[in-house]
C-alpha cells in the first residue's frame, strides 16, 4: 500500500516541502521489515535551502491497513515519543506529525532514522550483552518515572486501579470480539485473575518493551521504538514482558530478551528507579506476557481469516498460539 505508489510519493514530496519551506527531493524509499500493525518506510530527504538544507535520513511511520484493538494512533505515539525524549529515554527525534488523510490516506509522522538494527535474531546471536541489558534497564526506569499526572499524556485516559485485573477483563473481551475459543488461554486468564498482585505504583509503561522493538548499533542502544501500545500500568508488566521466554529469539537461556541475565537488569533498574523488583511478581507478569501475546496473535490471525487484511505473516502468527498456550500451562499448572 501507500508509498510504493508514485502519486502518493508526489504528495509526500509536496507535503515535506511545505513543512521545511524548501524544495526537496526524495530517494531511497524502502519499506522496513517488521511492523504487522504499523508500516515504517525509510526515506532519504534532500532539502535544498533553509535551516534544514542538506541530506537527512528519516523514517515515515503510518498505520497499516487494519489494526488490533489496543493499538494507539499516530498522533498519540508522536506525543509519547516527545514526552519520553524529555524524560531522558533514548528514542528517535520526531520531525513532524501529519493527521491529514488526504496526503497518504492514513495519519503518519516523520522521525530521524536511527543507526543499527532491531532484528531479534541478529541481536540475540552470540554471548551476553551486559552493557545493553543495563542500558535497557535504565531506559525502562526512565519511562517508569513518568506518572499519570503528566499533562501531555492525558489522552491515555485514567490509570486503572488494578492494571492486572483490568488486563484480564480486556483480554477476555478481545477474544470474545473475534469469537476465539481458546481454553488454554482462558485457563491462564483464570490463574491471572486469582493471583493478581496489588500494584505498588502505576506509571507510564511501554507495553511492548522487548527485543525487536529497540535499535542497537555496535552494542549500544540507540533508541526505543514502537510506542503504540503504551499506557498506564504496573511497571512490573514491562519487566515481565522483556523477560518472558517468548521474546528471547536465539538466546533462550538469556532471560532478558535473549541478551543477558535478569539479575543484571534488575540491579540496574533498581539503582536508577529506587524501586525494588520482586522476582515472584515478575513470574506473574511473565504469565501475563504469554497470555497477552497469545491474545494479540489470535487478533492478528483474525485480521487475515476475517478478510480484513490478507497476509501470510498474519496467518502464520496464529500458528504461534499453541507454543504460547503450552508455556502458559507449564507456568500455571499444578498437574
Amino acid at each position, binding site marked *: 500500500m501507500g508509498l510504493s505508489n508514485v502519486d502518493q510519493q508526489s504528495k509526500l514530496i509536496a507535503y515535506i516541502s511545505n513543512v521545511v519551506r524548501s524544495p526537496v527531493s526524495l530517494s531511497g524509499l524502502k519499506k522496513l521489515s517488521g511492523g504487522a500493525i504499523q508500516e515504517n518506510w525509510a526515506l532519504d530527504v534532500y532539502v535544498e535551502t533553509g535551516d534544514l538544507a542538506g541530506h537527512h535520513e528519516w523514517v515515515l511511520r503510518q498505520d497499516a491497513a487494519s489494526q488490533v484493538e489496543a493499538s494507539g494512533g499516530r498522533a498519540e505515539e508522536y506525543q509519547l515519543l516527545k514526552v519520553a525524549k524529555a524524560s531522558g529515554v533514548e528514542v528517535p527525534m520526531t520531525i513532524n506529525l501529519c493527521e491529514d488523510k488526504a496526503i497518504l490516506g492514513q495519519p503518519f509522522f516523520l522521525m530521524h532514522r536511527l543507526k543499527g538494527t532491531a532484528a531479534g535474531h541478529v541481536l540475540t546471536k552470540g554471548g551476553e550483552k551486559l552493557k545493553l541489558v543495563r542500558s535497557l534497564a535504565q531506559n525502562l526506569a526512565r519511562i517508569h518515572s513518568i506518572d499519570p499526572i503528566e499533562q501531555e499524556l492525558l489522552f491515555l485516559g485514567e490509570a486503572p486501579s488494578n492494571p492486572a485485573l483490568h488486563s484480564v477483563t480486556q483480554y477476555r473481551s478481545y477474544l470474545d470480539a473475534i469469537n476465539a475459543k481458546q481454553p488454554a488461554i482462558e*485457563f491462564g486468564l483464570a490463574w491471572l485473575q486469582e493471583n493478581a498482585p496489588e500494584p505498588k505504583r502505576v506509571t507510564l509503561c511501554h507495553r511492548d518493551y522487548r527485543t525487536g522493538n529497540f535499535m542497537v548499533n555496535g552494542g549500544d542502544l540507540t533508541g526505543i521504538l514502537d510506542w503504540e501500545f503504551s499506557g498506564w500500568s504496573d511497571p512490573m508488566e514491562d519487566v515481565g514482558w522483556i523477560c518472558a521466554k517468548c521474546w528471547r529469539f536465539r538466546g533462550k537461556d538469556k532471560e532478558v530478551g535473549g541478551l543477558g541475565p535478569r539479575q543484571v537488569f534488575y540491579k540496574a533498574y533498581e539503582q536508577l528507579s529506587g524501586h525494588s523488583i520482586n522476582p515472584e511478581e515478575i513470574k506473574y507478569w511473565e504469565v501475563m506476557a504469554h497470555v497477552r501475546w497469545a491474545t494479540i496473535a489470535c487478533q492478528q490471525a483474525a485480521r487475515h481469516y476475517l478478510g480484513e487484511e490478507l497476509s501470510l505473516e498474519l496467518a*502464520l502468527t496464529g500458528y504461534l498460539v499453541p507454543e504460547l498456550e*503450552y508455556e502458559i500451562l507449564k507456568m500455571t499448572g499444578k498437574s
Partner: protein
Amino acid sequence: MVKKEILTDLLSIARSVFLDEILEFVPDHKKYEALMIANAMAISSREEVLGKLDQPSPEFLDALSATLGQTNIQVETSIEIMRLAEFSTDSLKAIKLHQVLILEAERKVKISNPQYLK
C-alpha cells in the same frame, strides 16, 4: 487416507524443491517471505496428517467431557466454566482440566512447531 498421503507427499516434495533449488535465487529482500512460504507448507503438511490446528481433537473433547462431568461438551462450555467467579485453578477439577489442556496444547505444538518441544 490415500488422499492425505498424496497431498502430504506433494507438499513435502514441493517444499523440498523450493528450499533446495529455489531459495538461493530469491533476492535478500524477499527471503523472509520465502521462508514464511516454506514454513506454511510444512505446517499444512503436518495438518493433513495430525489434524487441523483450529479444530479440537475428538480425544480432547472426550477428555474435557469426562473432566467437567458433561456429555458431548463444547469448548465454549469449558470457557464459561473457567470464567465463573467460583472457578479456582487450585481445585481438583482444575488440576484435571489442566492435564487435559496441556495434552491438547502438546498435540497442537506438534503441528505448528514440533521443534519447540525438543
